[in-house]
């Protein structure tokens, strides 16, 4: 079947299987920043934004994003122009193996659009679906706070 969707701002028509998971579809189309972790909706490494909401793409069918917008980590920023969250994750040392980072950053991006000055507790709650086996989450929370400050200082859109 045909799927009409906008991924990272680019509107296109794709050919998909009706039972294909959003995760599988995105990775097949080259969005490898969307990671395959648990495939049960528990770890958050597959997090993407659908219509601005952070969701686990492994428990969503690709067909559900018909006519909708999807943002993956690739769409947030680039190596040359990283998003403040991506930059902050680097600066805060919030990366060990890095596998959880794309999902965490996407979830944090949703948080900052509705809550530009989140507390630690609010960050922890917003990221409660993103597991990290390497760190103790301290640096990720710090990174989000850093990014929030950068965004509010620069006036940039989160």
């Amino acid at each position, binding site marked *: *079947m045909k799927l009409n969707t906008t991924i990272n701002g680019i509107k296109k028509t794709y050919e998909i299987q*009706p*039972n294909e*998971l959003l995760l599988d579809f995105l990775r097949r189309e080259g969005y490898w920043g969307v990671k395959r972790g648990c495939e*049960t*909706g*528990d770890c*958050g490494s597959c*997090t993407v934004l*659908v219509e601005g*909401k*952070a*969701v*686990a793409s*492994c*428990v*969503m*069918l690709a*067909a*559900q994003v*018909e*006519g909708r917008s999807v943002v993956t980590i690739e769409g947030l920023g680039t190596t040359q122009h990283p998003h403040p969250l991506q930059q902050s994750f680097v600066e805060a040392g919030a990366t060990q193996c890095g596998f959880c980072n794309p999902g965490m950053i996407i*979830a944090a991006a*949703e948080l900052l659009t509705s809550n530009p000055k989140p507390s630690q507790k609010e960050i922890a*709650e*917003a*990221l*409660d*679906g*993103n597991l990290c086996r390497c760190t103790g989450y301290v640096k990720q929370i710090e990174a989000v706070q850093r990014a929030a400050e950068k965004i509010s200082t620069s006036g940039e859109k989160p």
Partner: protein
Amino acid sequence: MLKNLKNFYYPNQVKEVTKILADHGGKAAIVAGGTILSRIDSPKTEVAVDITRCGLSFIKEERDGLHIGATTTFQELYKSPIVQQFAHGMVSKASGLVSTRLIRNAGTVGGSIVYSYSYNNMPPAFLALDAKVLIVDKSEERWVDFSEFSKKHGTLIVGETGLLKEILVPSKTKNWRSSYLKFARSYSDWEAQIIVATALGFQDETCENARVVVGAIVQRPVRVVEAENEILGDRPDTKSFERAAEIVCENVSPMVDWRSSKDYRKEVLKVLVKRSLLECNKF
């Protein structure tokens, strides 16, 4: 999963949904959040009907109570000021304890009621608040008391060609004091081991309405009326709550699995029921 799925429909109105369901009988599956359908093995499903474009995401307080559309997400319920105020926020609390933010952003209240796994958060809350659900089947609508969901699985109540449209929490419960407790390995655990939902309606110092609901530890959420009777009347106190908790344990036979034993669950259940009732009484 869904290996025989051939087609996806995107209707814009409820009447289109009911036509598709009627045309395809038991071979059509409804999709809202997709968090359940994407994971189940359903060989008979040949078509999927995405109902998220049919105007069923709403939260409205009207004279008869709180109306919640079936495709309202858990996160929307959790954060809604209207829902936070109603019945001291029982429905908001229950929604906020569903799994994680990622699941709450996608999963819907309707899905939680229809695909009624024993550990689902929402049914005990709605049972404790005497809720009703509106089901449309072909062109006929009917209201169903939530007590029916204590007797049968949600899919059997809605039927193969039915659609759950909305939930009504009656206005009489608006000022009820409530408590909702979920016992699981962690906050983000999909599968609660025990859910206790209690609500007390007072007229001055007299408790005129009491609801003691237990979920997850049993196949379907149940009201323990014998425990409720213990609380009704003048100034229920800690002793009556303790007795109510004992009565719950006498009347409920816990489901048991590898996660914890029957004795452990009963012990925790007794503590949670008392704690929940004390929390209700705090207001």
